[in-house]
């Protein structure tokens, strides 16, 4: 298994006039054998980063390195494999699941070996090898996602990118897939980039957590530290917003300390990211609340704080919310 490194990666969509930068100068390392959880709101560029890693989206800047080498997308399965969000569209409805998996088995394998390999992989993802002849339409969402995992593993990947692989699944099935991901990751030692908007899910599988906002990574560190001691205001807001049945919040009261300006602020438009710190129009410790913090509007913070936090005032404040007790 191997290390995946994004080095100053940018991805731009669209042509000159209507161009938008979905991923902006991102540097991120997925260490050998680690699971890096990538969180962030919709449209922050998580999927774009994932698709760039597997070569589905061309880079407009930077490099992606596998063990220090640029990734070659020659013939044969690619070294970085991906599992998609929607198991209903990621499997060809006209192919049997065995055929889908076999497609990713490296070339030059005899057909008998190929069949044996497919059976082994199905067993690995806890599906009955006898079902290799089934069509995706005959499987449940959770079973399809297992097939998608098996297909990714068939290519003997160096790194697996999992993009929201449980969010299209029912709650009762989500757990089985997460358990499987954890088991496989531990058994095979696969390096993984695990993308999810659900912090509880990321907490369960990831050893490191990276937080993305409007195309930038704003915080990155060991999972338990980022969750227990978030440094960036956005990470803190994310953590505070996680619904928690065990610790029910009283229904929103007017006594909310954050000004309504912050509470009602809209996610910024990715086509026109705000200048300076991108989070400043929503930041509860930024210029909205502390007018003297003008620097947030004008200067983009560097990521040289603890957890590689990109915030001018990160170390200046005690952690706001400690969620894990």
């Amino acid at each position: 298994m191997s290390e995946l490194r994004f080095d100053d990666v940018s991805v731009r969509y669209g042509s000159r006039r209507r161009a938008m930068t979905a991923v902006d100068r991102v540097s991120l390392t997925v260490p050998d054998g680690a699971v890096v959880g990538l969180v962030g709101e919709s449209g922050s560029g998580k999927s774009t980063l994932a698709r760039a890693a597997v070569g589905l989206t061309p880079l407009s800047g930077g490099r992606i390195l596998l063990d220090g080498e640029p990734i070659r997308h020659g013939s044969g399965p690619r070294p970085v494999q991906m599992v998609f969000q929607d198991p209903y569209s990621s499997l060809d409805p006209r192919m049997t699941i065995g055929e889908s998996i076999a497609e990713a088995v490296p070339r030059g394998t005899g057909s008998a070996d190929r069949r044996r390999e497919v059976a082994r992989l199905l067993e690995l993802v806890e599906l009955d090898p006898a079902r290799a002849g089934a069509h995706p339409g005959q499987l449940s969402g959770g079973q399809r996602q297992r097939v998608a995992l098996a297909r990714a593993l068939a290519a003997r990947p160096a790194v697996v990118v999992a993009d929201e692989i449980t969010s299209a699944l029912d709650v009762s099935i989500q757990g089985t897939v997460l358990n499987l991901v954890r088991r496989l990751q531990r058994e095979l030692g696969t390096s993984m980039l695990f993308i999810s908007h659900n912090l509880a899910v990321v907490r369960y599988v990831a050893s490191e957590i990276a937080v993305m906002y409007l195309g930038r990574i704003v915080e990155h560190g060991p999972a338990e530290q980022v969750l227990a001691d978030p440094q960036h205001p956005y990470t803190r807001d994310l953590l505070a917003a996680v619904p928690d049945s065990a610790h029910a919040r009283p229904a929103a009261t007017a006594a909310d300390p954050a000004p309504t300006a912050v509470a009602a602020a809209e996610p910024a438009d990715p086509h026109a990211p705000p200048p300076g710190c991108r989070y400043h129009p929503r930041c509860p410790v930024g210029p909205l609340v502390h007018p003297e913090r003008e620097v947030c509007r004008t200067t983009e913070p560097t990521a040289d704080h603890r957890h590689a936090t990109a915030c001018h005032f990160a170390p200046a404040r005690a952690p706001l919310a400690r969620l894990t007790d």
Partner: protein
Amino acid sequence: MTIAPVPPTDADQPAAPSRRSAAGTRWLAVLRTPVGAGAGLLLTVVLLLAVFGPVFWSDAADTVDTTAAMQGASGEHWVGTDALGRDLFARVLVATRLSIGLALLATLIAVVLGLLLGTAPLLLGRRAGRLVTAAVDIAVAFPGLLLALFFAVVFGVGATGAVLAIGFAGAPSFARLSHTLAAGIADRDFVSAARIAGVGRVRVLVRHVLPNIGEPLVVNATIGAGGALLAFTGLSFLGLGVQAPSYDWGRLLQDGLSGIYIHPEAALAPGVAIVVAGLAFNLFGEAVAKGIGLTAAVNGAYPVRSGPRADTVPAPVTDDGTPATDPGPAAGRPVLDVQDLSVTFPGPGGLVRPVRGVSFRIGRGEAVGVVGESGSGKSLTALAIARLVEQPGEVTADRLEFQGTDLLTGSERSHRRLLGTAFAMVFQDPMTSFNPTRRIGRQLAEVAEEHQGMNRRQAMGRAVDRLRAVRVPAAERRAHQYPHEFSGGMRQRAMIGMGLMGEPTLIVADEPTTALDVTVQRQVLDLLAAVRAADGVALLLISHDVAVVGQVCDRVLVMYAGRVVEDLPAAELGTAARHPYTRALVAAVPDMHVDLDSPLPVIPGRPVDPAHQPPGCAYAPRCPLASARCTVEDPALADDGTGWRVACWHAGEVADLAVPGAAPVAVSLGERA
């Protein structure tokens, strides 16, 4: 989600037949419709004639009898004879082969060429692909017949020339079609997955794209064949197609036309043949297209029927509804009172009942959550209350009262009026609930104009006021924007604002935050809570997210297989649930406190297929507490006297050997009765 039909079957249910045979079944089903059957029969006759016509009637068609030249219709010659005394009826029949054969050949050329051109962009990469697409777009803009004439001149007069001409002329539109279809497939994740797996472009095309666009392509080719037939007869008629001594319908038509005043049958017969054959192809293609495509769904009210239907479905176990002395927050006259609500759909194997006897009440200002797996009937229950169940679906209930008004009796119009002002519904994705071509403010204002009789100005004023109430920033300006200019969270708030145009006493929100991020989700949930607190509006919040419901609601209804299996205070959800399913559901959702060192608890097995409800408790096959009684007798939803209702024979018990949630626990039924 929108007001679109809610299929009675769960997306997670495995479909029994495989994809291939499913397609076959669909084609067969088309043949069972009257139009499909008629067109199919006609097409079969035409094709049989094409094959066997010359075999049977060649002799009659070629027998020259100068004594009988240019005769009218008679017993011997049904549509008369031509200048050489040959029987015209036989000649029309014999000409079927050439006419149909050449038309099919031309269609084949058009389809093959079109496919090559249409899929070339996938193979060629960006720049060259764009060039091909542009060329096709230009070619499509030319009138087909003009192209055909142009090519006819290029390829020379004669059958071969005409076939090539019509084939080439038809290619651009097939190229456009296959390009559109192929591009749609190429966008799908499974094609991306194949590319990542190292499958080459040509193989992706052959293995993944072509099989998935085959069906619509064949349908369009069938329709195209009808067009090619007409074009071909046209060319032959003009003398550019089939040359004597060969003859097709076009030539016969031309021959007949010269003597049309003496002998109109000679022109009429081939004319009729052309129309019939053309119709056969067109109708058949259209019928299949309609059959396998989307059947247009019509949004309409359903007829509410009182009382259970005398149908083949066994009557559901009636829930022990809330007693009249129901204490708790629902005291007083409830806003909504539902008693034994069922929704039935006709299915392939008889009636399917995805909602089976649901009973509950919502008091003034109360927030009630509904949780359950997908397919458990949550959304359908909400749609039934809002009277939005689609046509073949049928809603029955013992009682369905909103604000004390019986929705089972009385006029449809008065109900609409009542629901229009006092009832609000919020869906998962409001993008589809708003009209994309109209400004948000207008759409809100319309509600007030229609239901409250306000004039335009007043209504607009109220719309802006309501947008402000749901904290849409710069409401005045935003009211003049279109839905796509709103972000997801803001659209959702505008949707809630639309519900607040009247004076709602109940808001039904179906997965209102599923499409949103946690931070935006919190804003929307807070808004709902604020609206509730300010105006005493009751809330029915449907969600698959136990955490969200537990946080926002007072009371939670847990649904399984179309029934309410537990109705408990939200505060008890995490710790004190009594129904095994409720406990399993809560445990299966990871929260920020789950133990990282052990596997997540899972619910073994899978949800019940609404078409195959087991006789006893629907949860029995998955339940760690199931006993023999559970598999034969369905427990009723029983009240413990405090308003907490549970439907379980072993409510509150703890499985002795089963650590709750530890991987699938096999329980042999009957062992622990």
